[in-house]
């Protein structure tokens, strides 16, 4: 089902939605954008081609999240927030990443109640990328600029309008007041999508990537590609599919908190005995790359990267994950 709205009507639409639920959308913070709870529709900033710098996974897995509060010696869970909210303007790559993270947090055996509550109270309204960036590579890893996986609604910029695609029933509830568009619009959208896809070159070959990386496991390749890595957490903290966390007790505040953690830090895997399975940066780089391009494939047969390009754009030493994979594909394994 398709609807449409003029681009300059978007502020009013958000204002209208704010009466129904909290609206989280990209807004300006200095020179970049982040998702925040908007008070007015005019705080929205979606004109730049780029993604928000801080990934929207933080809306579901906050960087620091209170798990329990200490009360009379007992750990008490915070009240679960189930007020509905709308996340507007999330890019298809980031929404796709949330579906990948669901496979981690919502397994049959153990459901993460914090993640589950945030997911259930959210309607995801996506924004298609008619003009993908140079650092994007979603088409390479099996997603695309108009991909709807994980979304309830997708907004597609078409000239002066947004064409609105209803993806799920849940999303339909927000669109009732809008003007419908006949399904024939699809051909125009497909044309636009093709144009966007064509502007995205295939960054690397994904066939046999898993097998290739396994073969490289003990190869000098890792030393080579990790040589200039600083070992900071930029790539993993900004990554929409990285989910590792640490649980710490903030004693003075009486809280048990979980914080994002990253495999790029030495202390991530440091054991009490002093042994560290990944003592140097090449092992940590290997863990990061292989988790995304081998281990995810092992567990759910999908690449654990959605091609958002944040790690590429914000790496302080200009390391490019696409380049690393290309190098891996062309690397001669010494048996």
């Amino acid at each position, binding site marked *: 089902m398709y609807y449409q709205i003029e681009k300059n009507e978007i502020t009013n639409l958000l204002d209208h939605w704010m009466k129904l639920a909290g609206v989280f959308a990209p807004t300006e913070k200095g020179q970049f954008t982040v998702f925040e709870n908007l008070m007015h529709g005019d705080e929205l900033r979606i004109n730049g081609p780029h993604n928000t710098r801080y990934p929207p996974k933080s809306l579901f897995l906050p960087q620091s*999240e*209170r798990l329990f*509060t200490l009360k009379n010696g007992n750990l008490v869970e*915070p*009240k679960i927030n189930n007020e509905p909210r709308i996340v507007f303007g999330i890019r298809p790559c980031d929404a796709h990443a949330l579906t990948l993270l669901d496979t981690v947090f919502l397994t049959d055996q153990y459901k993460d109640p914090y993640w589950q509550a945030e997911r259930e109270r959210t309607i995801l309204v996506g924004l298609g990328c008619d003009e993908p960036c140079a650092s994007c590579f979603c088409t390479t890893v099996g997603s695309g600029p108009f991909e709807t996986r994980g979304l309830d609604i997708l907004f597609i910029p078409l000239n002066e309008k947004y064409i609105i695609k209803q993806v799920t029933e849940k999303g339909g509830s927000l669109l009732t007041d809008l003007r419908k568009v006949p399904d024939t619009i699809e051909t125009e959208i497909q044309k636009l999508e093709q144009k966007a896809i064509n502007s995205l070159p295939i960054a690397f070959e994904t066939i046999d990537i898993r097998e290739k990386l396994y073969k490289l496991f003990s190869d000098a390749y890792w030393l080579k590609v990790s040589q200039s890595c600083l070992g900071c957490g930029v790539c993993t903290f900004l990554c929409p599919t990285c989910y590792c966390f640490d649980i710490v007790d903030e004693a003075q*505040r009486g*809280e048990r908190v979980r914080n994002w953690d990253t495999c790029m830090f030495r202390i991530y895997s440091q054991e009490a005995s002093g042994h560290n399975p990944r003592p140097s940066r090449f092992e940590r780089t290997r863990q990061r790359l292989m988790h995304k391009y081998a281990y995810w494939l092992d567990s759910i047969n999908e690449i654990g990267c959605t091609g958002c390009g944040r790690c590429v754009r914000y790496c302080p030493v200009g390391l490019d994950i696409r380049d690393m994979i290309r190098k891996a594909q062309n690397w001669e394994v010494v048996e």
Partner: protein
Amino acid sequence: MAQPSARGDNMTDRKPRIVLFQCQWCLYTEIDQHWVDHDLPSNIQLIKVPCTGRINPLFILNAVQGGADGIMICGCVPEKCHFKEGNFSARRQLDEFANFLVFTGFDIKRIRFTWIDLQEQGRIQRELSSMENDLFVLGPSVALATRHPLEGEQS
């Protein structure tokens, strides 16, 4: 460590909280040391150190973040350090650290250095009460006192 300050409190309800870092050698007279060890008012938290040289700037920061309204650092006068030179290295570092906190917006009156000579009996009491008076005027410390629960207060 001082208790976390509740937000929105004011000085009319309570006395200013002072964290006193004291070099264990600087109070020569029995009376002063006894007073510090046993009769310190409850709004003053004593942290005794073997020498002011032991005071890591992190100690001061922790006290400030934990909600102390004022910090007093009390040690031997120059050239009379029990360890000969511990207070020299401390003074360079701690003085600059205080300057630095002030640069980030902390109030200079909230950190006080007191270098006490052997003869100065009763000075520690005078210094503490004078600092307390200053802090009364300044009100509760806001800058850098940040140890609040995540996402606002717990209901």
